[in-house]
């Protein structure tokens, strides 16, 4: 069951596939996050209060000078392959925006392409999930979200002490693991939710 604290977190999910949107929404809600789903990168930027030309729309009365988002978004999870603006393009625009760059971004892809994964991680993506995404993948999100709530938030921090008590027993291990697994698209180790190995045997990164 999700922790009460997690419902404070609002995740914006971006995917052009209606099936994948439904799936990611269910996964996120099961993990007790608030979810908004959109079907394109441009709609995501709109929701975040940015426009495609990268300037913050200053005439909108409802947008406050300090927080350009209408609604606070704590994490963006996006598909890589989308028509028009790809997930990578969206990632870049978020990281280039002064108001949005601290929002953690996670990329999802159905294709295990090492160069694609590297590019995304280098551009600042926190994680890269292979589709289909599983509940166990989402457990890797918490450390990134907790970081953003911390007052001492610093993007470059590597070894951080949890600022919050970790109610979940795997909380601390997860933080370590998420650093180690950052370059791996496939999760290693036995996850409680997975009782048999994946039948379609995803090849690991070379």
């Amino acid at each position, binding site marked *: 069951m999700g922790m009460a604290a997690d419902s404070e977190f609002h995740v914006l999910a971006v995917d052009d*596939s*209606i*099936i*994948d949107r*439904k*799936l990611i929404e*269910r*996964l996120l*809600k*099961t993990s007790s996050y608030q979810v908004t789903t959109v079907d394109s990168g441009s709609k995501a930027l709109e929701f975040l209060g940015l426009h495609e030309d990268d300037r913050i729309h200053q005439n909108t009365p409802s947008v406050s000078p300090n927080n350009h988002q209408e609604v606070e978004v704590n994490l963006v999870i996006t598909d890589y*392959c989308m028509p028009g603006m790809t997930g990578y393009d969206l990632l870049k625009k978020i990281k280039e925006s002064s108001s949005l760059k601290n929002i953690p971004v996670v990329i999802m892809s*159905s294709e295990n392409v090492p160069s694609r994964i590297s590019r995304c991680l280098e551009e600042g993506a926190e994680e890269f999930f292979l*589709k*289909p995404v*599983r*509940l166990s993948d989402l457990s890797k999100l918490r450390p990134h979200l907790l970081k953003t709530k911390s007052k001492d938030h610093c993007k470059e921090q590597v070894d951080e002490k949890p600022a919050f008590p970790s109610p979940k027993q795997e909380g601390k291990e997860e933080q370590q693991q998420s650093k180690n697994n950052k370059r791996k698209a496939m999760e290693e180790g036995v996850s409680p*939710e997975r*009782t*048999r190995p*994946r*039948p*379609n045997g995803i090849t690991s990164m070379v």
Partner: protein
Amino acid sequence: MDVVNQLQRQFLDYSASLHREGFLDDQFTQLQKLQDENSPDFVVEVASLFFEDCEKLINNMARALEQQGVDFKQVDASVHQLKGSSSSIGAMRVKNVCIAFRSFCEAQNREGCLRCLQQVTHEYSLLKNKLQTLFRLEQQILAAGGSVPAIE
């Protein structure tokens, strides 16, 4: 209740056969695990979306392959989408046909593509029937006052 037990056993056997025969893979089980009292019709809803998506994509592929000058990139785009959806729902046989299909698109092999289109249409109909049977069994169990057993 005997009736409920019988239906439950039928359901489990049928589900096992679908997995054994490769119609469904572990991802489908993952979807079933995500279904709960907050989202009681989750699997049926996803399946419905998948069927709609399938039909639309199959039509797109058929139309594209009928053209004088086939736009293989367009066909491939539809196959890529179908591969993604079938992977997300656990429709293994459909997904596997899509993998072969993409190779033919890359090779710009119209005959090969048409064969795959036929296969994918066939696999999709099979799966649709089987899932409808599975869902019907679930409904019967619930109607008899029982609960649907969890897989695994």
